[in-house]
């Protein structure tokens, strides 16, 4: 309960709508609660992204690392490991892949509170993703054919709820999605194949 009040105060603070009491409450709680402090930091990062504010850590290292990896796997791994923690966190925020579901009615957001305008053309994720992956799927031209999506739009979304209001997800929902992502990744560690990949996915969600 107390936590939810704090979350609300924090949200208000981020929207410049907090009163003095709320500001003090958040400051005091953040002093004692690392979790709240990290939530606050994430909100700030998210706001920076949404408002296109420059954020000091927003240097994308992973593209260079990925490119290096393609040529020299073992040698460049060490430099990846040495990447500053702050930069690593920001990379995640900056480059969360966008959801390519323009035909859908759901409000697209990126994990956390970053939103993608539904009208945005889906852009390919940056970083490693922009380098062509070896060999796959050239033989599958049907993959982007509109047939499935169109059929889906008629049958699937017709009965769905109207377009969600153009605002971010609630703090609760945001936390929930994070929790679901972890649960899903953790559950995957129960499966044999490819055994370490789900673990790595789960571990990579830490420390955001």
């Amino acid at each position: 309960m107390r936590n939810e009040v704090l979350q609300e105060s924090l949200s208000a603070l981020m929207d410049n709508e907090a009163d003095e009491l709320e500001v003090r409450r958040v400051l005091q709680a953040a002093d004692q609660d690392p979790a709240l402090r990290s939530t606050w930091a994430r909100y700030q990062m998210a706001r920076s992204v949404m408002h296109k504010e420059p954020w000091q850590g927003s240097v994308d290292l992973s593209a260079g690392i990925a490119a290096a990896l393609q040529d020299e796997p073992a040698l460049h791994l060490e430099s990846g490991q040495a990447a500053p923690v702050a930069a690593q966190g920001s990379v995640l925020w900056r480059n969360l892949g966008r959801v390519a579901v323009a035909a859908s009615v759901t409000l697209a957001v990126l994990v956390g509170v970053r939103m993608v305008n539904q009208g945005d053309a889906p852009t390919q994720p940056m970083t490693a993703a922009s380098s062509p992956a070896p060999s796959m799927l050239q033989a599958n031209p049907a993959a982007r054919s509109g047939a499935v999506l169109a059929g889906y739009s008629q049958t699937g979304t017709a009965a769905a709820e109207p377009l969600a209001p153009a605002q971010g997800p609630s703090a609760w929902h945001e936390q929930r999605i994070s929790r679901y992502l972890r649960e899903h990744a953790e559950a995957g560690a129960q499966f044999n194949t490819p055994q370490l990949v789900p673990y790595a996915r789960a571990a990579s969600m830490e420390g955001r």
Partner: protein
Amino acid sequence: MKWSRHLACCSAAVLMAAPLAQAKDAGQLLRGMADAVDQQSYQGAFVYERSGSFSTHHIWRQTDDDGVTERLLRADGEPQEWLRRDGRLQCASSYFAVSDWQGAASQAVDPARLQRWYALEVLGSTRVADRPVTVVALKPRDVFRYAYELYLDDETGLLLKSLLINERNVLLERFQFVDVNFSLPDDALEVGSRCLPLNAAQPEKLVDASDWQPGWLPPGYTAGDSMVRALASGEPAVMTRVYSDGLARFTVFVEPLGEERPADNLAAQLGPTVAISRRLQVEGQTYLATIVGEIPPATAERIAASFPHAAVSAEALP
């Protein structure tokens, strides 16, 4: 066939002909990969990379008559450590890493089943972690899943590298060993002090959750156990169910919404993992169904839209 620039480079420079390895077909190689999970002890270091994230990890893994013990350590950022015995978490350094998930145990690879939904192909040989590997490609036969490239150690069958690739040929994630060694020091599995023993598991039960089955599943996906439990004390229970086509996975979560738990339809993406939430109305109560998995967003959307309850949503009626 139009080959990508990258492949052209690779096939010329790296993928050498390896008659010995290619004597095995893709199915045999996948079976070997599954056996290696059960049988191999090793230690190694690997990297994981997805859009916006790059992390480095160590693993120590011991298999013997008592089962499998593995110690995992994230080597960058905050120290994160896990110890698992036969897949069950024994200790963890991070609250967030702790899931008391105890659903169905490991699922063996079944090449015959995979063959229905993926075209299996041996691409050739190359080297990972200074070891010769054979590359097996799994290309989806429909639009409902992603493609994989698995790099399997020629000697042990161990998966040393895997790539997940979408339909636009974009690399979604990379898992890759840097170094692997098949002998373990005696103290390899001793965890550091930061690995905290777990509290008693929260009560949970396996239930019949057929009411919360989506109306449509991508072909080839079968349901695992379903489970109902609260993710935290004092919260309403969440129904959780895993679906898999033998390789790819998604999880369905359904839980009641309330005034203190507001949520709208949304779509989110974290690297290769998509999350689609949809509100459902059932007998006056609002629920949130969320699909999370390494599947194409359009597939997840279609699953989420197929819940029968979505059709009786009050807001959707004219």
